[in-house]
């Protein structure tokens, strides 16, 4: 049983309200930071903790904070990215819905460290009811003096606002989020300048994921070193993984970074194994990360057990590894068709492309059309190479990472499951049946193929 830092009290009665949260040790980090620590000392603890951004990129949080420009007389902002839209990811919703005060607490403590008097939580529009829960928590915190002027007599003022989006995956990209928060279209900005220098309203801004900010609470409470004791190497602490797909026990799990992938997917504490059939493939970190065959998810290229860490998941590079991403985990059983899934992924990115830059705007739609053709038994062998080439032309050539995110699922699907794509060309009639599933002709065990 792993330690629970964020979810420790999640099942306690009344934890959603201030009283219940406070009764279980809530807001201690605010007391500790504001009464006994300097902002620099809080930053130091976050650096020591080795905490990495939990939104997908895994950038060290302490370092991100230390980049924040601090010109005289210019306000600074903390913006919490709660635009959780990466397919497979629903951990932040779970956290905000069940234990909203941990985010409020994290935002106050983090803002103290950053010197931000105002912070915003940008919540995706579909989570309107979650925004209501957060607003309620903020109102309670304000009434109890955790927000407002001169909090705990420390001289630190802070206000939190909740902002709702309106349906746009791209707003999870931090500069698109800032644009949206300014009341504009969610078009990512061209960087540099980075938000740490010119962010919200052209002021220095830190944008962090919900889980990252929540993790600041145990880090300040127990110290960064204590936090860093959990995990392996540069993957420290605990991570929320939202698990879905063809597993027995879907849900949100707080894991110690460093447990084996086998334990995560097969033990009854977490996913509980496959839902009746056999596993075929895994997307461990949200739809943008490369899909890998099940066996490749379990073992690294050198044959060792793969671990749930940033490093281990990406071992083998794109050819034989994948990524931790945002922790949006989903597994495929052998009744699932990889071509259909890839088409589905690509349709998603096509729908969510903002349309600013040419390779993503045009390329995502092109890939979708080619994949639709393949999936419906109208494709040709050359289509597979064409797809490979289109994704290659998108990757790395766009303003923001959405282009890469659209390219990787296609690249990895072709790399590892090329036989299924070929099957769709050679068995056109069979795949026209919507209930077809591409199992029999294919592998019984993973090939560690590279394309």
């Amino acid at each position, binding site marked *: 049983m792993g330690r629970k830092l964020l979810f420790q009290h999640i099942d306690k009665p009344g934890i959603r309200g201030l009283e219940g949260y406070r009764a279980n040790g809530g807001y201690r980090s605010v007391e500790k930071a504001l009464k006994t620590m300097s902002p620099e000392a809080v930053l130091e603890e976050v650096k020591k903790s080795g905490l990495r951004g939990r939104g997908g990129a895994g950038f060290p949080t302490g370092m991100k904070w230390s980049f924040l420009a601090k010109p005289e007389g210019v*306000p600074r902002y903390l913006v919490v990215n709660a635009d*959780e*839209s*990466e*397919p*497979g*990811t*629903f951990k932040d*919703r779970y956290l905000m819905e069940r234990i909203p005060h941990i985010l409020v607490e994290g935002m106050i403590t983090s803002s103290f460290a950053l010197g931000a008097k*105002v912070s915003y939580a940008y919540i*995706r*529009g*579909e*989570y*309107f*009811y979650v925004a*209501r829960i957060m607003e309620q928590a903020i109102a309670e915190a304000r009434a109890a003096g955790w927000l407002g002027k001169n909090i705990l007599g420390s001289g630190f003022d802070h206000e939190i*606002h909740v*902002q*709702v*989006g*309106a*349906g*746009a*995956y791209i707003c999870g990209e931090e500069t698109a989020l800032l644009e*949206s*928060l*300014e*009341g*504009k*279209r*969610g078009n990512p900005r061209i960087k540099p300048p980075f938000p740490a220098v010119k962010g919200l*309203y052209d002021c220095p801004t830190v944008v962090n994921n919900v889980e990252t900010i929540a993790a600041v609470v145990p880090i300040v409470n127990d110290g960064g070193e204590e936090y860093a004791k959990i995990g392996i190497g540069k993957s420290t602490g605990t991570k929320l993984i*939202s*698990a*879905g*797909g*063809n597993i027995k026990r*879907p*849900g*949100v799990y707080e894991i110690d970074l460093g447990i084996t992938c086998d334990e995560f997917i097969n033990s009854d504490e977490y996913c509980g194994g496959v839902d009746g059939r056999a596993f075929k493939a895994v*997307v461990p970190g949200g*739809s943008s990360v490369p899909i890998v065959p099940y066996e490749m998810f379990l073992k690294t290229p050198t044959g060792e057990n793969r671990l749930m860490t940033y490093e281990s998941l990406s071992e083998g590079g794109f050819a034989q590894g994948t990524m931790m991403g945002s922790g*949006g985990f*989903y597994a*495929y059983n052998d009744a*699932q068709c990889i071509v*259909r*899934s890839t088409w*589905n*992924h690509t349709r*998603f990115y096509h*729908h*969510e492309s*903002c349309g600013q830059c040419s390779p993503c705007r045009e390329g995502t*739609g092109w890939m979708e059309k080619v994949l639709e053709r393949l999936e419906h038994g109208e494709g040709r062998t050359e289509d597979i190479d064409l797809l490979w080439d289109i994704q290659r032309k998108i990757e790395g050539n766009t303003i923001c990472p959405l282009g890469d995110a659209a390219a990787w699922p296609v690249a990895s699907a072709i790399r590892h499951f090329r036989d299924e794509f070929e099957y769709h060309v050679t068995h056109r009639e069979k795949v026209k049946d*919507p209930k077809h599933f591409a199992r029999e002709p294919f592998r019984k065990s993973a090939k560690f193929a590279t394309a």
Partner: protein
Amino acid sequence: MSARTRPITTTEGTKPFSFSEAGLAECKALMARYPEGRSKSALIPILHVAQAENDGWLSVNAMDAVAHVMGLRHIEVYEVASFYSMFNLHPVGTYVLDVCRTTPCMLRGSDDLIHHLEKKLGVHAGETTKDGMFTLKAVECLGSCGSGPMLQCGAGYHEDLTIEKVDSLIEQLRARNSRTNYTDR
């Protein structure tokens, strides 16, 4: 042209719009949340208010009222409203059923659910039933990947759906017959 249909860009045949008193008060409160000169930040929240007060969609009249309240140029409002997928730029039914169809839900059977709803309601995804009761939309990931297939109706998430569950949901909604909005409390 893709499957995404063009917005209704005329005021012809649409009813006039003005905010209710409560709605107007909410707009003012929303605009006051931001630093001076930055009230444009309230545009998306205010568009949600306008949509809820305009039978679930944003007509040109509704958007022009938003522009007026916020002191924005009209095009600034159109640009933003047409970017975000939760803003309907066509009239919709009493209930909008946003059924998630993205991969994690697909793995758990969302395709079947959508086909079932299409057959049951007699419409294709993207269309509204003749009686104006339901608009069926197939949407992209709603962040409910562990509890799919699922759909959103108004503010509510309906998760772990089966054919039986969705049938009874439809019956309940039909019997209740009152509009739901994302902004419902």
